[in-house]
């Protein structure tokens, strides 16, 4: 199993470690609910060293990405980011991505740990020599700080002359910045992105700096957080946070058998450009078939007794099975069970408040359709729906 540069830090903090996509990762430190609430009321620190970072550069890199992905990274301004997807020839989702334009001729593509090799290989093949594609995942660490106090905590480590620029970073923006951590200078790529539904940042540094940055942020947080919680957050709370925010997870909501249109993310696909792109013909045809074709992703609130889990069947009361739960949990913020389900779009519309049933241990348990995201984001500029809205 692979380990991130912060493995020993997790053990020191008493984390429970689990296998996640071949990586030995912290699933929880203090407890999922406590960690979840810390991010919603203060801030939390995440080791995301398992994620894939792939740099694509060169004069034709923009065109190569426009061909390789469903969106048009060439249209991004330098210092901006977009949520995107990479699909196969028939439009099936290979991964969901965040793409940052770092410089005129340089983009960073961040992929899920489980898909990193697939994405790097596909980018290389689709660029076919027109751009330089380098998988930097093994030498890059990614640390996220998320929550309402995250800006103040991170700012305290930023070189003084860059703090104004740091505070000016908008949602889905990115900049190279210099940090001072216990006397040492660290160069980092800092992006205002995240996967929690809170305002927050994702920080990319070389592995050699990961421990210093992690410890520096924990120390800064303990002095700055001023009574609000600030702590390390495991993958357990990362999952409940993203689900409340309505953000999809590859392997659950997103799969190769589904197109972006089957999961309510058709807007991520840029069909209104003259370019050719992999999966473009299939996705154009799919878009033309409309919303009642294929599958649709529906938000569910369980009103009866029990929690809807991944794989459980969903139906209208007494009706035929319409599909299955893709992710489900007890929502720590709402205090009741929530779920996303992959349902037959032919049975749409699914209107909020409409009754459904989830089969829990063989019994039909009362549920209802509910709007997604499940929680509204309180941070001023941060949007729970960022992944959905920032597609262009």
């Amino acid at each position, binding site marked *: 199993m692979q380990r991130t540069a912060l493995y020993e830090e997790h053990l020191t903090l008493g984390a429970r470690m689990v296998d996640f996509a071949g990586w030995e990762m912290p*699933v*929880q430190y203090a*407890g*999922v*609910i*406590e960690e*979840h609430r810390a991010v919603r009321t203060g801030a939390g620190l995440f080791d995301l060293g398992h994620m894939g970072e792939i740099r694509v550069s060169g004069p034709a890199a923009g065109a190569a990405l426009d061909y390789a992905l469903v969106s048009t990274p060439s249209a991004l301004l330098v210092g901006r980011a977009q949520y995107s997807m990479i699909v196969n020839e028939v439009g099936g989702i290979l991964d969901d991505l965040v793409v940052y334009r770092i410089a005129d001729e340089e983009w960073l593509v961040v992929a899920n740990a489980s898909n990193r090799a697939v994405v790097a290989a596909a980018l290389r093949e689709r660029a076919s020599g027109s751009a330089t594609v380098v998988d930097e995942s093994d030498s890059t660490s990614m640390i996220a700080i998320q929550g309402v106090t995250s800006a103040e905590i991170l700012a305290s480590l930023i070189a003084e002359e860059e703090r104004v620029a740091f505070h000016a970073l908008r949602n889905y923006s990115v900049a190279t910045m210099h940090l001072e951590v216990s006397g040492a200078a660290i160069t980092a790529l800092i992006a205002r992105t995240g996967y929690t539904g809170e305002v927050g940042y994702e920080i990319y540094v070389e592995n050699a700096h990961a421990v210093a940055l992690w410890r520096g942020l924990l120390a800064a947080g303990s002095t700055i957080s001023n009574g609000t919680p600030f702590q390390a957050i495991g993958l*357990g709370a990362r*999952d*409940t946070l993203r689900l409340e925010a309505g953000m999809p997870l590859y392997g659950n909501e997103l799969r190769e058998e589904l197109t972006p249109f089957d999961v309510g993310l058709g807007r991520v696909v840029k069909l209104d450009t003259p370019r050719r792109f992999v999966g473009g013909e299939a996705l154009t045809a799919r878009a033309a078939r409309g919303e009642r074709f294929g599958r649709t992703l529906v938000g569910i609130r369980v009103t009866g*007794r*029990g*929690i809807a*889990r991944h794989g459980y069947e969903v139906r209208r009361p007494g009706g035929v099975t319409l599909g299955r739960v893709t992710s489900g*949990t*007890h929502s*720590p913020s709402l205090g009741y*069970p929530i779920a996303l389900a992959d349902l037959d779009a032919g049975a749409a519309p699914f209107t909020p408040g409409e009754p459904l049933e989830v089969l829990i*241990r063989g019994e039909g348990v009362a549920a209802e359709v509910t709007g997604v995201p499940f929680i509204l984001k309180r941070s001023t500029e941060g949007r729970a729906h960022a992944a959905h809205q920032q597609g262009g």
Partner: protein
Amino acid sequence: MSSPADLRYSKEHEWVRVSGDRAIIGITSHAAGELGDVVFVDLPAVGSDLKQFAVFGAIESVKAVSDLFSPISGSVLARNEKLSSAPETVNADPYGEGWLLEVALSNTEELAALLDAAGYDQLTA
């Protein structure tokens, strides 16, 4: 950490506290810790029959759902209704306020098939 000496334990991490022909059952501190934050407990109705080592309900944490296995056979006399509004009690006090069921034992000889505290601690060491 050693488990309470006055209880008997199953390998599926349930405990039983016997007094006469009645018993209280619950899950161990080890099990509660492994589960993490308990958010839902699905218990059988009063009057239901339990069979030793068979599934009688389910316990859900934020992360996962686990079956509950009865350490003994019997019929349910009472269930801990407090858990429907405060399931986290199972984490806070697994051997006390976080009990699950009170049961009328149907066969006290079954207790011989359970572990004592030392045996259970060895199992979970």
